[in-house]
């Protein structure tokens, strides 16, 4: 992975820069010892590492502002960090950068049930936002699988999704406002607990901007009343085409399950061996979850059963109690772990139109044979967000490169059929150089202009999202 040459001037001024950081932050908030910086050398894309110049862990917006201001004055790049679970290398440092971690800013500032929002500091973990409001019967809907660890800050930066976003939308649809500090230290409030902006929707473009426009320190999030109950069904098919057609029919019928998850045979086999969830050995499997009262759940499941049976499934299994429901989800939830047992894996997340599902799965199978690497597919079928897991061996020389080349082919295929490179993980460094597959020079120019406005010196997370060639002139200036 090519990264820009670190700024020699910044490296040479390390002592001075760290000194200035210490002057504006409490002693325990500045880290510059090499052994302590190792924690920050990568995120969940562990194949690429680089220790930063220093890391800071501020506790207030004012401290964040002071740090950014002085880095701006010194010309030091800053890489914002939440919990470091990015799968795209979004939080990976460069040698001349300061990591700005918001993990210590994790308080709940207000929970307002009458107006249905919660106001939190951005370092709070996703799951603990729901944790703060669930006693009152509410929850925060976006639920990335990493929700125990990942921070709201990272969710906002990546516009993260989750298994239940088919019904509830992704982060941007549940975000009401933020406090944001721009690179020169200016604190701005975008949106607010009432949701709709008066003028331009700047919040909308900040969400998903991968830490390149400003550092989010607080957020107002929409909370929803918890449904009365939920229940999954499992449906097995002997072909991917038929499973895809079943998904399409359910959606067309106007039933809105909260989740429709899909697993293919390689993935089913791997998870069975690992988690023993009792899945049928079939070509494709759907897990469909619906919500509501007992009666409402039955009404929806009856309709789903009717649609599914018309497609001649090899199995239709309804959870009859809590335990069975857990078992149905068990395999899906262990899928990543199961694949990880077999080998190292790379997880892609391109999105495709649901109608292209059979074609894309078939093509991935062919590519798998061409590249000689196994791949399992587990994904959010309702919205076409694929998660092909390519297995490789990190210790075999050349395997990572082969795997990346295979991954790039899959992502190109996603774009070719009308989809996109990434549905929820973000571009980061991982897909940076593929952006031109999806966007013209003008399309990227328009996006980079937004960064020009928020961060004219291109100091915030500068080597991400856009191909280095495309951003070169701006980063140099």
């Amino acid at each position, binding site marked *: 992975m090519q990264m820009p040459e670190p700024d020699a001037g910044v490296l040479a001024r390390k002592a001075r820069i760290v000194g200035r950081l210490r002057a504006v932050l409490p002693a325990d908030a500045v880290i510059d010892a090499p052994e302590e910086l190792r924690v920050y050398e990568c995120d969940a894309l562990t194949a690429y590492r680089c220790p930063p110049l220093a890391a800071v862990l501020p506790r207030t917006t004012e401290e964040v502002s002071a740090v950014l201001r002085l880095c701006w004055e010194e010309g030091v790049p800053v890489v914002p960090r939440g919990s470091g679970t990015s799968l795209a290398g979004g939080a990976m440092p460069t040698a001349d950068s300061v990591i700005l971690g918001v993990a210590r800013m994790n308080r709940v500032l207000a929970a307002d*049930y*009458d*107006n*249905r929002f919660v106001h939190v500091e951005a370092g709070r973990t996703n799951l603990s936002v729901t944790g703060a409001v669930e006693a009152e019967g509410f929850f925060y809907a976006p639920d990335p699988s990493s929700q125990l660890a990942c921070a709201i800050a990272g969710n906002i930066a*990546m516009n993260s999704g989750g298994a239940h976003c088919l019904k509830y*939308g992704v982060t*941007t*649809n549940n975000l009401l406002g933020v406090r944001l500090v721009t690179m020169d230290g*200016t*604190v*701005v409030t975008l949106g*607010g607990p*009432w949701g*709709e*902006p*008066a*003028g331009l*929707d*700047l919040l*909308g*473009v900040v969400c*998903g901007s991968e830490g390149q426009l400003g550092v989010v320190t607080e957020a107002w999030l929409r909370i929803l*009343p*918890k*449904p*009365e109950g939920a229940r999954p069904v499992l449906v097995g098919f002997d072909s991917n085409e038929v499973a895809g057609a079943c998904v399409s*029919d359910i*959606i*067309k019928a*106007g*039933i*809105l399950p909260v989740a429709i998850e899909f697993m293919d045979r390689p993935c089913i086999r791997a998870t069975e061996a690992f988690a023993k969830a009792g899945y049928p050995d079939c070509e494709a499997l759907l897990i469909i979850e619906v919500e509501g*009262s007992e*009666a*409402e759940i039955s*009404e*929806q499941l009856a*309709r789903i059963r009717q649609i599914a049976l018309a497609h001649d499934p090899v199995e239709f299994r309804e959870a009859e109690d809590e335990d069975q429901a857990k078992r149905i989800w068990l395999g899906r939830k262990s899928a990543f772990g199961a694949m990880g047992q077999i080998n190292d894996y790379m997880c892609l997340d391109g*999105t495709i*139109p*649901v*109608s292209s599902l059979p074609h894309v799965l078939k093509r991935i199978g062919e590519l798998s044979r061409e590249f000689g690497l196994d791949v399992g597919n587990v994904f959010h079928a309702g*919205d*076409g967000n694929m998660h092909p897991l390519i297995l490789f061996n990190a210790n075999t020389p050349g395997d990572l490169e082969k795997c990346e080349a295979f991954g790039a082919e899959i992502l190109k295929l996603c774009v070719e059929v*009308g*989809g*996109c490179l*990434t*549905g*929820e993980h973000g*571009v980061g460094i991982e897909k940076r150089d593929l952006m031109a597959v999806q*966007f013209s020079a*003008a*399309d990227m*120019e*328009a*996006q980079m202009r*937004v960064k*020009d406005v928020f961060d004219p010196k291109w100091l915030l997370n500068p080597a991400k*999202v856009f191909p280095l060639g495309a951003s070169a002139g701006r980063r140099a200036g």
Partner: protein
Amino acid sequence: MRPVTEAELAEAVAGASGPLLVRGGGTRTLGHAVGEVLETGGLSGVELYEPGALTLVVRAGTPVAEVEAVLAGERQRLAFEVPDLRGLLGREGVSTIGGVVAANASGPRRVQVGAARDACLGARFVDGAGMVVKNGGRVMKNVTGYDLVKLMAGSRGTLGVLTEVSFKVQAIPEAEATLVIEGLGDAAGLAALRAALGSPFDVSGAARHSGRSLVRVEGMAGSVAYRVTQLRARLGGDVTVAEGAESAALWREVRDVVPMRDKPGEIWRIVTLPTAAAEIVAQLEGEALWDWGGGLIWLVLPHGKGADLAAAVAGRGHATLVKGQGGPVFPPEAPEVAALVAGLKAKFDPRGILNRGMMG
């Protein structure tokens, strides 16, 4: 000017010698922009419709009515309920889908499914220099690059001229019903709306006008009946239930702000916290229609009360003048936000020709 292709439109913008007034149908334009009229109505028609994937790609000048008819053919719809404000604003003309997105115009169902911008999956537009840009796409989940679609939605043509939009659409549910609650004052009637929205019964509309509070549920028939029973038990007041077409008619009235038509005075659109909704109206002594559980207020006020309104709303929302004489239409932004907005306008429309003066 009325280009019929995106390329023609781009040429028209690039070659413009002065300000342009971008117009879909002119049915929901606000503000005081001036310039040569650039109509988008020539860019019309559906590009792609996949009912099984809930996606629709349509050219920006396509009439809303046409979009709705195409969707209705497959028993689908735009989930955010496009308001028709022609009656309210005293306009004629054919509302276009691009205008809806440019105004981020969302109806009562916003409380359940989000705003127009939340249904937009992708867009193509021509910036102020005539450059053609695409952003987003036609798939449900897409975080590739920055989300300029959100930026364009609600920008009222000040950053670019939309030429195509893709939407996530929704199946029309098999049943709907509305609880009509009478006998409550405004404060209690609005509290009932908040209680409904805070319940697990998936309310898709919560509005109040003419002394009645309205709470809507939609879905499968059995589920609708169940939720009506549950809500009725919780909400108090004198409840009657309107079903099917009768319910739909009640919500068209709310969506299009029908009760405020032909009222003398100015009409303001206020976005605020639901808990502040009763107080703001009481303080100003205006006549109101509340939607979004109180989060949206359409308020009729005599001319000259703008400053009082701004004071009443300060710190808990904002107000836009949708009908009235003179005065700023959009509320002023905080200086640090205004600086970012000015920066974006300068980048996307360097000559400052697109809807100049529209958003202040």
